[in-house]
């Protein structure tokens, strides 16, 4: 199959859906003629013009709130926010308005709104260009949360997001953008709420989020030698979360590690651990372990930045420790 990068895969998905659905338009800084800071809209301006590829002033709250009103009145806005950090100024609109409109209108309004951009640590981008923050979108009711780890999933999930009537947060890790992988062309849709078993294994289950999937694959190279057979699961969407696939795996392995780059407290690891404990307590042969980034704002200097992020070695260590428990 042809190899595409994350960027190429999501651009293809957006381009195909914009051709299919004339109500889709994109809002963001530099997503017009410029084609997006992360090349998310390259070539689309010439095809679809300024109204559907709308460069915005620097008013994140404003254009997110505008997108809310647009989604309520017959169009499908895509907010291309670059880095999640920037759009934190719009959390009020997201939590109070966007996430609640369907409920408060008893389903008479829909909220077909996509929030997409980058999150995650890397490239010495420092503390205002590194936030992931998806746990808070899992906490508040109303959002769909998508964190892809492969170009194929990125395309298939973005297309699903662009046909979904709920607000979707689609978050890509900046270090994955140029990663290449096989991507089916045309009508390739990945449904929400279905985890992907990346590797089957028998001794330890690892649930890895986003960039932690390739890092775990790397870690696994060194583990096979020691006969540690890892079952790697990529939830792909965190809301809805496919807990059944995780529970089934834990039933088999009895051991679970959740690997997530962002913060631990009230994070993805905590939620998955709590659900597995509730649904699979008797299957557990060892405590569920969490591997997260350190609980500090992201520093700039490479040695500091490296220290706050769990890399492949950290994953390998965590798996070994868990396997030994």
């Amino acid at each position, binding site marked *: 199959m042809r190899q595409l990068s994350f960027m190429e895969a999501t651009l293809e998905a957006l381009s195909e859906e914009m051709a299919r659905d004339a109500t889709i338009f994109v809002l963001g800084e530099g997503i017009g003629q410029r084609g997006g800071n992360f090349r998310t809209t390259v070539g689309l301006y010439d095809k679809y013009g300024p109204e559907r590829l*709308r460069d915005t002033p620097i008013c994140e709250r*404003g254009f997110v709130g*505008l997108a809310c009103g647009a989604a309520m009145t017959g169009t499908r806005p895509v907010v291309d926010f670059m880095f999640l950090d920037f759009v934190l100024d719009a959390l009020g609109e997201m939590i109070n308005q966007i996430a609640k409109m*369907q409920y408060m209108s008893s389903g008479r*309004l829909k909220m077909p709104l996509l929030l997409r951009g980058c999150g995650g640590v890397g490239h010495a981008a420092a503390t205002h260009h590194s936030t992931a923050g998806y746990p808070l979108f899992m906490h508040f009711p109303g959002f769909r949360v998508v964190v892809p780890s492969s170009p194929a999933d990125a395309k298939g999930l973005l297309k699903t997001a662009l046909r979904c009537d709920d607000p979707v947060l689609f978050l890509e890790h900046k270090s994955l953008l140029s990663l290449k992988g096989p991507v089916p062309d045309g009508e390739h849709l990945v449904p929400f709420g279905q985890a992907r078993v990346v590797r089957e294994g028998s001794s330890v289950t690892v649930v890895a989020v986003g960039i932690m999937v390739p890092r775990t694959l790397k870690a696994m190279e060194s583990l096979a030698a020691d006969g540690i057979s890892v079952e790697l699961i990529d939830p792909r969407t965190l809301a809805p979360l496919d807990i059944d696939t995780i529970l089934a795996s834990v039933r088999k392995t009895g051991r679970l590690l959740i690997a997530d780059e962002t913060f631990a407290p009230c994070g993805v690891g905590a939620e998955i651990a709590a659900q597995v404990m509730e649904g699979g307590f008797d299957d557990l042969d060892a405590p569920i372990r969490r591997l997260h980034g350190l609980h500090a704002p992201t520093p700039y200097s490479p040695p500091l930045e490296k220290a706050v992020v769990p890399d492949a070695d950290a994953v390998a260590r965590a798996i070994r420790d868990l396997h030994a428990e």
Partner: protein
Amino acid sequence: MTPATPPPLTLYRQMLRIRRCEEALVKAHGRGLIHGACHTYVGQEAVAVGVCAWLRRDDVVFSTHRGHGHALAKGVSCRELVAELFGRATGCSRGRGGSMHLFAPEVGLMGTSGIVGPCVLQAAGAGYSFKLLKSDRVGVAFFGDGAVNNGAFHEGLNMASIWKLPSLFVCENNQYATEVPFRYAAGNPSVASRGAAYAMPGIAVDGNDVFAVGEAAREATRRARSGEGPTLIECQTYRTRPHAEGMGDFTYRTREEVEEWKTRDPIRRWRERLVAEGTAQEAELTRVDAEVQDEVDDAVRFAEASAWPDPATACDHVYSV
């Protein structure tokens, strides 16, 4: 297509309907039938009615915590409004919203809100949709003077201006945000003059004169429908009841000020004008008074007799599927 000029008597009926409805809600609040907050629209009726007179059913309105008047003027029935405040399944929001969360998208009421500010952005968003869809519909935000100092006003008006969106920004300057005077909270006491910061026409009108408000709305909707862009309308008005039912008054404003404003009652003024100009006969008006009172009494009976929402539905519609 622009709506036909609204019959003067219809404007009278609509303003009176809001007034009588609010009076009924005040009584009901006293009887403990209203559960959350209740912000009445008494004194400001000319704004909602004057603006909505120039809106079509398919135009959309985004409103505030003080939204009963906007809901009624946009076409929500007294029954649905009162039932909503009573928390019944027959309310316009099926009992999920109450006073501050009135939803009736089928008539273009896209929601009142418990948060000050967002309606401005959402009305710009509706304008964006209508522009993209090549329709001549308009998006309207009603908001108070308190919202003018909020970033949503700044960001929303700027975007609407640079993109020439078919949106109306109707500020109901009743001079107080809860108990904080606008003259204290804003460096510049004029709301209309702020249009200049966004190169948007900003006009000030007597918000207690339904005709004056209507004329401003007529021109603003014409501009919007014909692609000339948004308008900021400052309606200078006053709420003659406390900020919310159950709250005190006269600690932050004087009885005299309130009494003085009562003499400018938009409904009485319009009634007197209709009679003076011979547009309507006393008899007709008295009949309308009676009909409106019946309508409101019926709405209260209807609401009280209505069923409560089923607790089993508490988690429905969080998601579309």
